[in-house]
């Protein structure tokens, strides 16, 4: 009887110890391995800021590796309510870091001296980014047809995402169309 109790106890404690050791080693190695896999940024929200004439993207970095936004290319396609002709801003430098596991607001200037965006206008943006594990340039292509809720300004106080960090790259209209990236 005593023997049974003793060796059951030893077996149980050994089992728990093995569970603890195995869980500890496996969990921390998994964390270390997963912690080096970069994710692709996701545009989770778009707002047009009338006062600054910028389009503000809420960009989520769902991975553990910080991503570096390098530049963006913006294609404006007019809708039915505007007289503004279509235009393209090419390879405007952004230089911004998307920290891991956060949503960052990125404000991109529209072309200077153009009319405000109206409902129905389409803005297509190609964001080029890099990450530390590779020297390649990656890109995210995001198209947005502006709706009523996305028009902001004149006291429109709803600010969407946390971690406000605004870059105001100088809009270089008719920038040289260099074939960089994909």
């Amino acid at each position: 009887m005593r023997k049974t109790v003793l060796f059951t106890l030893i077996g149980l404690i050994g089992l728990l110890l093995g569970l603890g050791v195995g869980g500890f080693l496996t969990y921390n190695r998994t964390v270390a391995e997963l912690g080096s896999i970069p994710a692709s940024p996701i545009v989770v929200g778009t707002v047009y800021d009338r006062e600054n004439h910028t389009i503000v993207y809420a960009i989520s970095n769902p991975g553990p590796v910080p991503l570096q936004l390098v530049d963006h290319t913006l294609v404006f396609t007019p809708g039915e309510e505007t007289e503004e002709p279509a235009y393209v801003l090419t390879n405007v430098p952004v230089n911004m870091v998307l920290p891991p596991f956060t949503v960052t607001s990125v404000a991109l200037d529209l072309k200077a001296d153009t009319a405000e965006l109206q409902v129905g206008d389409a803005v297509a943006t190609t964001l080029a980014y890099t990450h530390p594990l590779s020297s390649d340039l990656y890109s995210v292509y995001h198209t947005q047809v502006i709706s009523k809720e996305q028009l902001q300004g004149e006291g429109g106080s709803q600010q969407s995402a946390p971690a406000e960090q605004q870059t105001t790259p100088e809009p270089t209209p008719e920038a040289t169309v260099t074939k960089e990236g994909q």
Partner: protein
Amino acid sequence: MMRRNGWLWFLLVLFLAGVILAWLGLLWGALLLPHEVAFVLGFFGFLLLGFSLLRDYAWAAGLLEDVLRTRTSEAEASQRIRQAMPGEPRPELTFILLLRTLLQSVAPIRYAFYGFVVLMLLVTVALHITPGAQALALIMTGLFLGGMTAAFFVWVLDMTVAYLLGEYAQQLARSQPPQPETADVAEATG
């Protein structure tokens, strides 16, 4: 002659090699992560710390089991203990008292060993609840779990010896029921 330190040198060399490699930063990176190095070092460190316990408990358990299964007579077992403990002068001691003297000689080491285990546990818990010490707490947990793995072996041998001593006392009580001295021995061994 039975209490040789055969494995001690092997363990010591392994442990020192691990410490030097970890010190030079050669172990982690490609091969092992820092907390895994800590686990290995904690394991070998505590094996070294509890080496005499492991050795003596394993030896005592083997001897006790031989006596219980009557593969070895008590006189022969006493002779072997005397050889292992050259300084023991009292010739009147019985086998079981000799064995207890042997186990008593490592009792301070046992106390220190379990004390170190508790100390490691406390330091690990303290690091876990210290804000901003996550990296250190991870390393310390690795050391602690490695030490616990070694401590588990020591504890199992400890328990085995205690169990076999109890068996021996029961056997003694069964073989000589009416005599009052056996109660003393059983009490002393149990």
